[in-house]
């Protein structure tokens, strides 16, 4: 797939084809748009065009109260809403110096890890669908449905949770729910193997992904790739371990990294496998949390009229799509002065133009799916 494929016949005028891929396109995961220039099947360039799902979530932050903003953060990334909840609440707590209830911290971790599994299920499921295998997608959604049921039990909502509040969590996790989560884990861990047999070790699937669009470590640094995409480049970097927050330091878990087992280090297959392994790690974390869930209140006492002292704070958490940052400025009033959200998908979008040159149109689809970019999170 190099320049030689670009045939310029003598006296024969050829032109690159410009195609608008999206915003309504089956494999752009929401409303993304790429202005794609191709030479037949070979990509010349793919320019991401973002902003179709912009809902001014950051601006809304300046207009609603601290407590009232939490439901809006759900919408920043509706496939992994719990993380944005947690990020904003941690920022507010740090500003006001609130000690979070210990049971609340565990509830947060349980909810977040369940949500990470759900989000990764969507990621690998749609990945399979973009490669052309529809069955794994439905199977992944079947498991995710169980998680949605669990979430409904925990907080009453299935997609946008509004569960994590400033000072703890909205509702305590009941013993019955704990049993159900254990039941789900018993069921889910073998399912990952089944999923591996169905998709991960499929010959066609490996052929499609191995060696496709590898991201080097230098590129990853320059383009600020985070989360599973960064770990697929072979770098062991996880905010949960390296800039610890919540109760993660007390928990045992591995950080899966890309190994280049089927192709180049940091290719699509590595990005896929990292997510598969992360789901299993999340299962481990969940089991530990359920075992050591302390007694006590799930939420600390926080004033209804929440007014943190003036100041600014930057909070980083490990979302399902990587390093999610909340930069929150307070002027001591009832409303945040400024809320800025930094998300992993946005930076992941920027590298697509660089590494997609010279690949096939079908590979571009695989690349988008492997980066797990999520339209709501890009635009916010």
């Amino acid at each position, binding site marked *: 797939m190099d320049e030689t494929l670009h045939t310029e016949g003598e006296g024969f005028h050829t032109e690159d084809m410009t195609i608008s891929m999206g915003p309504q396109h089956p494999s752009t995961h929401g409303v993304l748009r790429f202005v794609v220039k191709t030479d037949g099947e070979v990509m010349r360039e793919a320019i991401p065009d973002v902003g179709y799902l912009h809902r001014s979530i950051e601006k809304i932050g300046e207009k609603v109260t601290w407590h009232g903003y939490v439901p809006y953060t759900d919408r920043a990334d509706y496939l992994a809403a719990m993380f944005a909840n947690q990020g904003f609440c941690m920022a507010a707590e740090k500003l006001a110096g609130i000690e979070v209830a210990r049971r609340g911290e565990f509830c947060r971790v349980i909810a977040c890890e369940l949500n990470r599994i759900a989000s990764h299920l969507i990621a690998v499921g749609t990945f399979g669908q973009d490669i052309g295998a529809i069955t794994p997608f439905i199977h992944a959604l079947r498991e995710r449905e169980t998680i949605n*049921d669990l979430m409904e039990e925990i907080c009453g909502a299935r997609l946008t949770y509004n569960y994590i509040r400033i000072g703890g969590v909205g509702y305590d996790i009941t013993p019955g729910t704990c049993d159900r989560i254990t039941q789900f884990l018993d069921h889910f861990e073998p399912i990952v193997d089944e999923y591996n047999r169905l998709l991960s070790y499929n010959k066609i699937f490996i052929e499609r992904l191995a060696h496709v669009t590898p991201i080097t470590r230098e590129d990853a640094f320059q383009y600020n790739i985070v989360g599973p995409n960064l770990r697929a480049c072979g770098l062991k970097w996880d905010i949960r371990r390296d800039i610890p927050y919540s109760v993660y330091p007390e928990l045992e878990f591995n950080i899966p990294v890309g190994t280049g087992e089927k192709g180049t280090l940091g290719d699509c297959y590595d990005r896929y496998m990292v997510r598969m392994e992360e789901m299993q790690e999340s299962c481990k974390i969940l089991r530990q949390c359920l075992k050591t869930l302390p007694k006590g209140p799930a939420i600390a006492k926080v004033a209804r009229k929440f007014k943190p002292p003036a100041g600014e704070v930057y909070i980083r958490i490990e979302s399902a799509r990587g390093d999610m940052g909340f930069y929150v400025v307070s002027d001591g009033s009832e409303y945040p002065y400024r809320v800025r959200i930094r998300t992993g998908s946005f930076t992941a979008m920027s590298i697509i133009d660089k590494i997609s040159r010279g690949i*096939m149109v079908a590979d571009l689809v695989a690349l988008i799916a492997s980066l797990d970019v999520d339209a709501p999170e890009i635009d916010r």
Partner: protein
Amino acid sequence: MQQLVDQLIQEGYFEGVPKDFVYTGFMVLVALLVLSFFVAPLAGITSWLERRVWARIQSRVGPNRVGPQGILQWLADGIKNLLKEDIIPTAADKRLFALAPYVVFVGFFATFVVIPFGSQLIVADLNIGILYLLAITSLVVVGILMAGWSSNNKWSLLGGMRSAAQIVSYEIPAGLALLTIVFAAGTLSMQGIIKAQGWAPWDWLLFYNPFTFAAFFLYFTAALAEGNRTPFDIPEAESELVAGYVTEYSGMRFLFFFFAEWGNLYVIGAIATTLFLGGWQIPPITDHPVLVGILQFIVFFLKAYLWVFVAMWVRGTLPRVRVDQLMSLCWKYMVPLSFICLLGTAAWMVIWPQGNRVASFVMFLIGVAILGLFFRRVRFQIRHAQPVLYWKPYI
């Protein structure tokens, strides 16, 4: 029938037309009617079955509302699509755009002319049956290219181009695999090929020698690619090309493409059955002509439908290959392999002009062993897929 035509001629309906013309015309008309009434429900029911099989693979229910077990779903879908607005884009080449679905449809429909459903049940037992088959299925690519070009949509164009490259390439291994059988059977006629086989599996051409055994899999793979089926469904790859060459189509025209696709699925199975699996051959258990005809039809239909089911199964399991991988699979592996099959069969016929019964029997046993291992593997997967947690079974 003949009396009716005679009566019509006497009453002066066909003044000045030669008598033979009228007879031929009526025969063609009747054949077309019969085929239409057979093919339309066949393609429809195949579509329903595919959705059901697919749904079971994906642990869903599938269409089960219209008729018993949803078997009339295709009728409801057909009526819905008939009632829909037929949109022709303003920038499209209107004539080609309107014509393309019918070209595709004719390309698949005309193959039914030479498919032998029984020893008497065939529209025309052409002495060049297989050549006719290869020629007429090539018409499909013309229709798809027309659709891709005339839509004036870049995704459609890409889909059309992919399809042209794919179908033209895969006709070579498919054709060579078929030629292997022509060598072994010594005839091009479909009925002749079936008559060269027996009812017992070891008399089938599939087990004639190792090369025909390999040719069967080559043919089936190439036929899947020719029929744009997963894992070779790149012309309509919905995740890459939106819907490929059918992107701009709507209503009944859209349905015609899929009508052809599902009908084609049966054609693949029928050709495989005819050439490799003994066609309508049944053990000599009865002499009653009607009963024999019915039994032959059932045997042929089931054998063909088995492969339809396999194609559905494959579609529910495998991802899609990339364009360059598709081409390299064809030209680097399948074409040389099918040549080897062809030459191997020729050599085999020089060594054993009458065929080798022992080798056939051994091949049959190997086939059974492969099938047994395969089913053991499938059972293993099913056992592992058992523990499914449903908290809300009513959903």
